[in-house]
């Protein structure tokens, strides 16, 4: 992908990398069940293509102001370089905040079901609790060994802890969002968390702390800690059962993940090495959607 111009890049600390990936050495024929999942989130749009229920390619791109366009963009990017055409896709499932606006989808399924399914695919049947931290909400999902949802709790209508809230802090601190987690861990001693979880008030509090002479690292640690506590509370309310995994954009924030582990006193299953071609936990919802697509396609063939 072409990077935005340097000047713009410097000012937009919230901007995270958009990319697409194709699994090497996989072949497909017209006999294969090729399905796609398109997850249009509030901040990121993700698409995944699966061959017979195995990941083949995926993409992550930023959601624009128009959901159908964002869905097409993500799917187009996932198809890019695969030789596949949209017409080769036997079944497409839309999910996410903008799921009703995925024009090419055969069906829409909630992101809660898709994330549970996708987490089960990425990490295997031992997953029982999924924390999905998206751009606009936080969900704690309990699932069984097949990846089916048992119960869930959601925190929406508030930016605290969400990816959007983290983007605001990246801009405030002038630190690229992908580095924020690691930087927040560069403190000798964990400071007390910020007292306000409301992002608007936390911003004011953070500015006050910076003026008091706190380092950016320390302020970020205090903010990240408060957000991690919030997420841990949601997990405790839904009932924590091992194994725990984290999906969504914030699964890549090592500062958040580490602190959730500290607060809960357990380790999460580590995410695959997505930087090196592994399954990306931010795409979990789209993987789940593509898997549902396969099951739904098989149903149409039988009946």
């Amino acid at each position, binding site marked *: 992908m072409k990077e935005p111009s340097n000047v713009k890049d410097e000012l937009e600390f919230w901007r995270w990398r958009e990319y697409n990936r194709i699994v090497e050495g996989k072949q497909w024929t017209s006999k294969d069940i090729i399905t796609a999942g398109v997850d249009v989130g509030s901040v990121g749009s993700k698409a995944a293509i699966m061959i017979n229920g195995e990941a083949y390619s995926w993409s992550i791109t930023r959601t624009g*102001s128009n959901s159908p366009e964002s869905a097409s963009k993500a799917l187009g990017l996932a198809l890019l370089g695969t030789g596949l055409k949209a017409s080769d896709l036997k079944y497409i499932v839309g999910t996410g905040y903008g799921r009703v606006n995925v024009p090419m989808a055969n069906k829409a399924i909630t992101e809660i079901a898709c994330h549970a399914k996708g987490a089960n695919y990425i990490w295997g049947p031992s997953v029982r609790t999924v924390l999905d931290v998206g751009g*606009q909400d936080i969900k704690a999902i309990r699932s069984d060994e097949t990846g089916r949802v048992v119960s869930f709790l959601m925190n929406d*209508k*508030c*930016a605290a802890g969400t990816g*959007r*809230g983290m983007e*605001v802090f990246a801009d405030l601190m002038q630190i690229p969002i992908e580095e924020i987690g690691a930087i927040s861990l560069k403190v000798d001693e964990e400071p007390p968390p910020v007292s*306000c*979880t*409301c*992002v*608007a*008030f936390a911003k004011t509090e953070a500015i*006050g702390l910076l*003026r008091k002479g706190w380092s950016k690292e320390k302020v970020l640690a205090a903010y990240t800690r408060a957000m991690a506590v919030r997420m841990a509370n949601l997990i405790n309310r839904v009932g924590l059962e091992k194994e725990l995994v984290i999906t969504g954009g914030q699964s890549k924030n090592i500062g958040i993940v580490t602190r959730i582990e500290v607060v809960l006193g357990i380790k999460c299953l580590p995410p695959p090495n997505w930087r090196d071609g592994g399954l990306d936990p931010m795409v979990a919802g789209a993987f789940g959607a593509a898997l549902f697509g396969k099951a739904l396609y098989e149903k149409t063939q039988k009946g």
Partner: protein
Amino acid sequence: MITLGMDLGTQRVKAVILKDGEEVSRGQAFSGFDATTATEEAVAQALKGAGLQRSDIAYSVATGSSMENAPGADSTISMMSADAKAGVYFFPKAHTIIDIGAEEARAVKCDDKAVMVDFVVNERCAAGAGAFIEAMARALEVKLEDMGPLSLKAERASPINASCVIFGESDVVSLIHRQESKPEIARAVFDAMADRVSSMVHRIGVNPDVVLIGGVAKDVGFIAALKRKLGVEILIPDFPDYAGALGAALIAATRAKERQK
């Protein structure tokens, strides 16, 4: 008898001086990072206005989110009680007092004797308070004081996310990109906030007379939106931002008399 009320709010400190239960002067200062200094400034201003010395004050009461920082206060009173006292002082039939400040919104239900019987608070979330209007004004590149008059020019409102300042900002930006008019966006901001305040007030009941105080009570855009939402007449005193300080000063008068006995 001279009494002093101090309201240490998150954005401003207000001071009101009463002489025998009647308001004689006011003062205010930005809270900044040092509420104590700001309070001294506001009190000095009020004393000057009344031609009095600090030693003339028989009793002083502090209220507001930083009330514990008030220099020389004889005692403190909860914001809710101060609201109830002030609301009934201005409008004797008041039973519902809504106080919207910079960072907090409250609604207080009081009985016929101006005693608070129930309340509901929106705290630790900027969406229901003045901070919401301020953030949206910034996103819209409009001065805060122009938001209200601007919103009154709108014929309809565009929908925006009322539940969170951060999401609301993104909504305002996308409305600007869609080339919605500024008056309509401004109206949407007030409607969204009035929606939130109204659902908060409904939790204690909308019992007339309904009184609106706090800094946001000066905003014509918010007043219009809240009237539309609640569907009742809303009474607003002349200096609604000083209501909390006035309530504290009234309580100071009562406590001074008790002390004399």
